C-alpha cells in the first residue's frame, strides 16, 4: 500500500514537471512571437547609415541620406520598411542594386568589369611606390656622394698667392 502511494506520488511529480516544461515552452514561444510582431521601428540614424551608401540616379552625386527630393524620401522610407522587416544593410544594398542598377551604390561591387578599376588602382599604387622608392634612393645616393667630396685643406705657408698677400700686407704696414 505504501509502495503504491510512493509510485502515485512519483507519477504526479512527473506530470507536474512535464506540465511545467510545457508551460515554459509556451511562454517562451509566445514571448518570441510578440517580439517578432512588434519590433522596434528603425531609427532615422539606422536608415541614414544605409542611405549614405546609396545614390539616387535622379539627383546625381548626392548621397541618399541628404538628398532632398521626394524620390529620395521614398527610397529612405523603403529602407526603413526593409530594416523593419529584418533585412540587413547588405541585403538592402543588393536589393537596390538589383532594382536600380549598380550606379546607385557608393562603392561599385567587385564583379565583372569593375574588377579592372580595382586592379588598375592597385597597379598604379604599386608603380607609384616603386618610382617613389627609386627616386628617394637616387637622391640619397647623390647627397652622400656630394658630402664625400672634400675640399683639399689649404696650407697658407705653401700657397704662393697667400704668401704674396702676406708679404704685401707686411710691407705696407712697415711703410706706414
Amino acid at each position, binding site marked *: 500500500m505504501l509502495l503504491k502511494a510512493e509510485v502515485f506520488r512519483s507519477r504526479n511529480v512527473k506530470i507536474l514537471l512535464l506540465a511545467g516544461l510545457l508551460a515554459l515552452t509556451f511562454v517562451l514561444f509566445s514571448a518570441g512571437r510578440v517580439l517578432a510582431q512588434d519590433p522596434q521601428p528603425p531609427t532615422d540614424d539606422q536608415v541614414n547609415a544605409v542611405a549614405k551608401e546609396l545614390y*539616387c*540616379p*535622379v539627383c546625381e552625386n548626392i548621397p541618399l541620406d541628404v538628398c532632398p*527630393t*521626394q*524620390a529620395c524620401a*521614398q*527610397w529612405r*522610407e*523603403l529602407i526603413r*520598411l526593409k530594416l523593419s522587416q529584418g533585412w540587413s544593410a547588405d541585403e538592402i544594398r543588393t536589393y537596390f*542594386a*538589383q*532594382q*536600380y*542598377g*549598380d*550606379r546607385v551604390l557608393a562603392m561599385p561591387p567587385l564583379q565583372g568589369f569593375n574588377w*579592372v*578599376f580595382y586592379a*588598375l588602382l592597385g*597597379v*598604379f599604387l604599386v*608603380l607609384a611606390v*616603386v*618610382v617613389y622608392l*627609386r*627616386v628617394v634612393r*637616387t*637622391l640619397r645616393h*647623390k647627397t652622400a*656622394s*656630394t658630402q664625400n*667630396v672634400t675640399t683639399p685643406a689649404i696650407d697658407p705657408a705653401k700657397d704662393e698667392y697667400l704668401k704674396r698677400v702676406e708679404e704685401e700686407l707686411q710691407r705696407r704696414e712697415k711703410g706706414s
Partner: protein
Amino acid sequence: MELDIENPQEEQTSIRRSLPRWVIILAFVFLLAFLALIGIGLRRVQAGPIVIGQKVPEFSMVTFEGQPKNLSDFKGKVVVLNFWASWCAPCSQEAAELEQAWRYYQPGDQVVFLGVDYTDTEPEALTYLAKYDITYPNAPDLRTRISQMFRITGVPETYVIDQEGKLTYVKKGPFTSLGEIQAVLDNLLK
C-alpha cells in the same frame, strides 16, 4: 657630381635612367589601358539616344503583376512607351489622358500602351496606378535598363514605336490632352 646638383635637368635625366625599363613599359601599358577605358566610357556616355526613324532594340520587362512583356510581342502594332514615376508631379498630369487613350484604342487592338516606372518604389508605384485607375501594363524599369537604352532625360517621357518597330515620335514632358495623343496615333494608324 656637383654638376648634377646644380643642374636639375641633368638630375632628372639620371633618375629616369635609373628606372628599370620594365617599370617604364608597364607604366605606359597601364596608362594606355586606363585611357582606353576612359575613352570607352566617354563613347558610351556620348552615344546619342535612339533617333526617330531608327529601329528600337529589343527590350523586355516584367509587369507589376508578374507578366513578362517583350517589344517583339507587339510587332505589327503601335507601341506607346511611357516613362513615369510616382514622385513625378507632371506624370500625374497626363496619367488620366493616357488611360483614356488606352481605353479608346484598346478595342481596335492596333495600339499597345506600356508604362515604365522609372527609379520608383513599388508600394508608391502601385498606389499611383490605383489612384489613376491605370489598366494598361506597367513594369518597373529594372536596373534602369530601358530608360538608359532610350537615354531619357527625365520623366514623363513618351516614345511611340510604329508597326515596324521604328521610333516615330518622342514627347518630353506630359501630354496635355487626349486630342494630342490621338493626333499622334491616328496619323500612324491611317
